[in-house]
């Protein structure tokens, strides 16, 4: 996604190495994706579902997919 759109930055974080982040983001399982440090997507989704969930969060914050 970061390759497609210059607005997007994508980080992969090995969460065991950053316990303070695991706590702040309330990580109970992985993978978990944080969108602008909030509203995580839990688990691995198929490509389209993942992209749609992210776009929905960005365009209509507060609503879940």
């Amino acid at each position, binding site marked *: *996604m*970061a*390759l*497609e*759109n*210059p*607005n*997007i*930055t*994508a*980080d*992969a*974080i*090995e*969460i*065991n*190495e*950053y316990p303070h*982040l*695991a706590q702040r*983001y309330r*990580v109970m399982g*992985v*993978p*978990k*994706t*944080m*969108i*602008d*440090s909030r509203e995580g997507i839990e688990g691995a989704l198929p*490509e*389209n579902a993942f*992209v*749609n969930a*992210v*776009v929905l969060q*960005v*365009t209509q914050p507060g609503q879940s997919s």
Partner: protein
Amino acid sequence: MTLIGERERVEIRKILGTMKHPVKLINFTQTFECDTCLDTRQLLEEVAGLSDKLTLEVLNFTIDTARAAEYNVDKVPATVIEGDGNQRIRFYGVPGGYEFASLLDAIVLASQRESGLAADARAAVALINKPLHLEVLVTPT
């Protein structure tokens, strides 16, 4: 001692052989209070040695603060994958285990300047018109 075995080297060379354009890895590291910085640096040095199209720049997080700010890197070890001016794919922590495959994948995609997304996903991603920070939290196993 090397972290990557001889057999793995052959496989990695094959994968990196599909690279098209040069890619630079930028590793932010520090010498103390970072358990995994040394391993990360060594792993990246070994990977960078396996392709002519791949280079590695090692920066000290505590000294090269201007560069860290430029890349918005806020913790170590950090690995920025830079291709064609795009610096927006980063790995935090040792890119080992499953993440090693993700690292190689990201390098190849950045090098091919091709996201690999399907047309639908591509169209949806294009709708994002303001800065967006995605953080995928993972564990190595």
